[in-house]
């Protein structure tokens, strides 16, 4: 059963497709995908409920334009302004079935709770906070940061050795080198006073 979320906004489609393909190997087969959300808007502040100033629930993310060769999808939330080296990673999700067209809001933070319908096999990976959950923007007061919700389509399922921690963004990008068939992102901002 497909997960079905949100409505695409034309401006967002334009914004997503003109973004440079950072972090991507220069494969002509990689397609631009559109990334949208019912609560996030490109260039706009992340709503409080997706930050520790609110409930800190993960936002619903939707995508379109997934190539037919895709087997799974990965979602990262990254802050390119933090980290040694950057980016600081707020969220990692991988092995999302290609049949899904999005993630619902408030993905579970309790590992004993099952994945929502349509997301069989999906794994939340290890973030920069060393937890396999979403934790939203918490920048130091004063300066705004940007938060990139990036979606990758890959033509493989990422293998995982038993009794090992869920993978990090760096491990996933390494494991999927040469297998990226699509990419899109939605960039929002956040600032604390």
């Amino acid at each position, binding site marked *: 059963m497909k997960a079905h979320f949100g409505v695409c906004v034309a401006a967002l489609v334009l914004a997503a497709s003109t973004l440079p393909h950072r972090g991507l190997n220069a494969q002509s087969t990689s397609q631009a995908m559109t990334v949208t959300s019912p609560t996030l808007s490109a260039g706009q502040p992340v709503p409080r409920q997706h930050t*520790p*100033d*609110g*409930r*800190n629930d993960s936002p619903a993310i939707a995508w379109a334009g997934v190539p037919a060769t895709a087997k799974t999808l990965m979602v990262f939330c990254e802050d390119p302004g933090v980290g040694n080296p950057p980016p600081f990673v707020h969220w990692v999700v991988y092995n999302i079935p290609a049949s899904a067209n999005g993630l619902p809001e408030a993905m579970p*933070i*309790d590992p004993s709770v099952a994945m929502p319908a349509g997301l069989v096999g999906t794994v939340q990976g290890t973030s920069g906070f060393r937890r396999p959950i979403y*934790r939203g923007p*918490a920048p130091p007061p004063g300066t705004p940061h940007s938060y990139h919700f990036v979606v990758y389509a890959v033509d493989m399922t990422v293998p995982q050795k038993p009794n090992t921690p869920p993978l990090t963004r760096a491990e996933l990008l390494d494991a999927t080198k040469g297998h990226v068939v699509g990419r899109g992102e939605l960039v929002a901002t956040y600032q604390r006073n």
Partner: protein
Amino acid sequence: MSDEQPRVISRRDILKRVGAVGAAAVTAPATTLAGLAVAAPAAAAAPQPQATAAPREAFENLTAVEADLLEAIVERLVPSDEHGPGAREARAAHYIDRALGGALASSRQAYAQGLTALERYATASRGKSFLQLSHTDQDSVLIDLETGAATGFTGSSAQFFTLVLNHTRQGMFGDPYYGGNANFVGWDLLGYPGIRTMVTPGDQKALEAHTLTSNHKSAYDYETFNKATARRGDASAHEGLAHGD
């Protein structure tokens, strides 16, 4: 107490309330319980809610509100679950409370400030008192403290979180003499077989074979040890009590 589980009123509760404990009451539900909404107990794992609350053990240094918050926090740090009792049963909050009057007195202010800040943060970000949040939401709040993302703390919230976690571990796994690790539930969780003043090669072999049963002994069950930190002038009042500074 979790508000994720439906509050179930079981037949047992009702029978307790009406004092009907005889066989007759149990076997004739239709007559005795007519008109009462009775549901079957929830899934086997759910603990039966108590009809009458157990008398509350007094806290000595924390205020009642601080104690409520601390009890709720330690319960999330080491929950009671299918793997056994947790920090509440171990009396970890009581360990901390008692220590705050003595060896950990330098942390008293940190607890006063930190617990207030936690409650304020929970209300501001999750819309409710920490005590009224679901377990999952309480965990989410604590994670935000742990990562330093929670606002309103003196310095980083992570510092307060680490302090409470460290003290909770002492209260869960320290010698019961100090008031925590009640009934050795902490040592049993870890598989620690208890204090021994002599460990023979046979004991070591039994430990390795997993046949060494816990002796449930505290260090102070052995007469030899002088408790050099006993409170001055109070010796008689503390005879028989199982605590120290």
